[in-house]
């Protein structure tokens, strides 16, 4: 009874507090350091072509303009925002600051060709103009526009920025948007980012299952041109060839605001009578047809049923596990990954050591910061570069903020998997505040690209410690709300206690790492076992639990959020003065975007949000790696441990176990 009272008190407190939802359209400017559309200053440009050379996505093309005193070649940059991922290498490397970032993220269109910005267009400061609302054509159109149901299919990494719309921070339900599991009930399909052939087959099928009229919104650059994966052997370069797309949003990933603007445009268009492009699909002569029963080769026994969980399932992520069920009980499970395989290890061999930093966070969207940290770590180890202490501290702050948002994401999924949607709204709403602080620190919410070889790309602003302090005290208060609503919640406890128990031996044999390992009682954390960066100075208390069930895995993460807050606080207190990045190698050469790294091999381990992350880099003395092996933390956990845990559990518990392991399909697929 007291528990119920406590939960009711928390909810009442929430109801009386300030609304968590941000205004839309945004009334205040976005975070000041956001890397949005570039601004070009022609009178500063020297026409040196560095920006077009350094761009890893070939988004910048030099076009012939008028020659002048400063610009002797007359070449000017033209940016293709279908390709630009806003990594900032062009701005960083521009010798005269002719290219700078603005805070403007709104790049959306119905015709992708219009996203090519000529130098003249780039020179005009951006402005947001909302179109005039059209005259409402009919009651049907009006009703339709205010009740768009979206297929719940998390195809790729841009989905991470559609997720805040589910949360209390952006709250899509105020536009009448609802996420729905079945394509047969849906009106709109959001293609969230890159599409591999394996995913495309499912997208085409889902699209053809949706009733008329239907709309498709494509997020990010990858559906337009392949984006960052323009040369990947396993991603589709233009999804428009296969299904008609109504609105394209540029960005990598686009912020939630442009997604909102796209939705507003869509609503207005639908009110004006727009019913989507005519339905037309192409399967590339049958190549893009879903294979029948991809995994279930053997015929099931009498009384048993074969079932595929994922990849299009409200609780699956873009990953699939095929189950054999006896009644409600799973008797056999087999993981089928690969929906997000982009061939990172191949891509990295063809980009320079520094360009790869913008690539690596994209391996795992939920915790990208760890990847850039680990990658820069391995390169620095190879080159013998030592990061200045202030740089180390800032990296720690970034990594811990990223860990917090990753764990918050997971707790939200934990609520979703047990049918407790309130938790999703609340925790993901809080997560947005962490992301905004990360943006204050680094320049981007999701793919920070804060690290560079030798340190971090820029120092903090003077008001950052104060802002961080505010967030820390806010989150500390909120942790008690999570406790009341989730960890002391009888329904949640009943659904997660003694479920999916991982014993210490199983965890070791299946290479389970991170909070999942620590929930079994094994006190292994790379931050304390092999301290890297400034973790030794700052000190880490690693929380553990003993039971190893789903509940304790969630509990471990909740405790880690608390510890990460402490770490950030200590790091800000102790933050040393000095430079944030090393600019020269030990041999005295300057660190540039095409620097060569001495021959050799190096291994580097860090503790990411999901556990031990290992990078193995091999250099032959060139400016590109010979090979980089990424060993992600979820590979063993999801592909080896997860199917074993499912044997004997009820079907309804599959998502609960799945999310309690904190999966990231993008991480093990790479």
């Amino acid at each position: 009874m007291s528990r119920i009272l406590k939960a009711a008190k928390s909810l009442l407190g929430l109801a009386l507090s300030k609304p968590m939802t941000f205004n839309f359209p945004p009334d205040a400017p976005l975070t000041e350091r956001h890397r949005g559309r570039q601004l070009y200053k022609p009178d500063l440009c020297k026409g040196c072509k560095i920006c077009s050379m350094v761009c890893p996505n070939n988004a910048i093309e030099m076009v012939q303009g008028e020659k002048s005193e400063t610009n002797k070649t007359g070449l000017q940059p033209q940016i293709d925002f279908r390709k630009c991922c806003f990594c900032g290498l062009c701005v960083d490397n521009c010798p005269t600051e002719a290219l700078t970032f603005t805070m403007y993220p709104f790049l959306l269109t119905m015709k992708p060709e219009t996203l090519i910005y000529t130098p003249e267009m780039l020179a005009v400061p951006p402005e947001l103009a909302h179109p005039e609302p059209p005259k409402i054509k009919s009651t049907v159109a009006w009703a339709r526009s205010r009740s768009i149901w979206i297929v719940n299919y998390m195809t790729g990494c841009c989905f991470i920025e559609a997720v805040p719309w589910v949360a209390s921070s952006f709250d899509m339900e105020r536009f009448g948007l609802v996420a729905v599991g079945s394509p047969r009930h849906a009106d709109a399909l959001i293609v969230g980012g890159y599409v591999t052939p394996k995913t495309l087959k499912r997208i085409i099928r889902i699209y053809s299952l949706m009733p008329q009229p239907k709309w498709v919104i494509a997020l990010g650059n990858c559906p337009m041109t392949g984006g960052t994966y323009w040369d990947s052997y396993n991603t589709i370069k233009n999804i428009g060839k296969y299904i008609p797309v109504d609105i394209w949003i540029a960005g990598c990933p686009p912020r939630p605001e442009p997604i909102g603007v796209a939705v507003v445009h869509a609503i207005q268009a639908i009110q004006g009578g727009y019913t989507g492009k005519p339905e037309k699909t192409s399967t590339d002569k049958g190549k893009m047809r879903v294979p029948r029963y991809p995994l279930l080769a053997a015929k099931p026994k009498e009384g048993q049923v074969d079932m595929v969980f994922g990849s299009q399932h409200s609780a699956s992520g873009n990953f699939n596990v095929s189950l054999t069920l006896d009644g409600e009980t799973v008797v056999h499970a087999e993981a089928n990954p690969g929906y997000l395989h982009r061939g990172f290890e191949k891509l990295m061999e063809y980009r320079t050591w520094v360009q790869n930093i913008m690539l690596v966070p994209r391996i795992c969207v939920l915790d990208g910061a760890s990847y850039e940290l680990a990658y820069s770590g391995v390169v620095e180890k190879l080159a013998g570069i030592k990061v200045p202490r202030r740089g180390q501290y800032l990296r720690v702050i970034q990594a811990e903020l990223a860990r917090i948002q990753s764990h918050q994401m997971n707790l939200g999924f934990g609520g979703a998997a047990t049918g407790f949607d309130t938790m999703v709204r609340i925790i993901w709403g809080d997560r947005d505040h962490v992301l905004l602080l990360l943006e204050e620190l680094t320049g981007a919410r999701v793919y920070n690209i804060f690290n560079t070889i030798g340190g971090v790309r820029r120092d903090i602003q003077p008001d950052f410690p104060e802002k961080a302090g505010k967030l820390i005290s806010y989150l500390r208060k909120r942790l008690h709300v999570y406790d009341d609503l989730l960890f002391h919640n009888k329904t949640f406890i009943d659904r997660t206690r003694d479920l999916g128990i991982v014993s210490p031996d199983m965890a070791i044999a299946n290479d389970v790492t991170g909070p999942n390992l620590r929930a079994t009682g094994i006190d292994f954390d790379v931050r304390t076992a092999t301290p890297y960066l400034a973790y030794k100075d700052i000190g880490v208390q690693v929380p553990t639990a003993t039971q190893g069930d789903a509940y304790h895995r969630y509990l471990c993460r909740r405790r880690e959020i608390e510890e990460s807050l402490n770490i950030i606080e200590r790091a800000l207190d102790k933050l040393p003065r000095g430079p944030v990045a090393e600019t020269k190698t030990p041999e005295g050469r300057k660190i540039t975007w095409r620097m060569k790294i001495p021959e050799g091999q190096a291994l580097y381990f860090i503790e990411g949000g999901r556990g031990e992350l290992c990078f193995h880099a091999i250099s032959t003395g060139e400016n590109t790696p010979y090979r980089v092996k990424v060993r992600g933390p979820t590979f063993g956990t999801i592909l080896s441990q997860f199917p074993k845990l499912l044997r004997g559990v009820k079907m309804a518990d599959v998502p609960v176990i799945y999310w309690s392991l904190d999966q990231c399909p993008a991480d093990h697929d790479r």
Partner: protein
Amino acid sequence: MSREKFTANSFSATLKSKYPVTQSGVQGNILTLTVDTGTYATLATYLKEQGFTRCLTVSAIDWLDDNEFEVYYLVHHLKNNIYTKVATRIPRKKPEIPSLATVWDTAALHEREVWELFGITAVGNPMLKPLFLEDWTGKPPLRKDFNWRDYVQKEYYKAKEG
């Protein structure tokens, strides 16, 4: 399982006295070894007995100029916190390596990945079937001689509607 306490340096010396190690190095708590293909699997069994219970990865490097593949595994001793990487070289013409699936559970999956992305067969692995790629027609993609730019051009940029 041996409960003995040892460091990477002392363990490196023990290994060298017991097995024919062609190359070895210690960097902090990371021990790297190069052995011949015959020792590759026997050493794995020994390492497991010594407490290297976590297999982090089995992977490969394509040394095209030497016409060889380097196959390696990376294991971790949880108690002593020592990482060991054991590598061996095999000819590109006969890409076969004994499987470690019986030693470490997760090795089977990593070998499946190596089989798919490098075309190296782990002899004795029962799981060798596609892991990430569906209906793949090209060469194993992580091989250095896989002409991926041509493949991408042909498969994606020039693909016709139909």
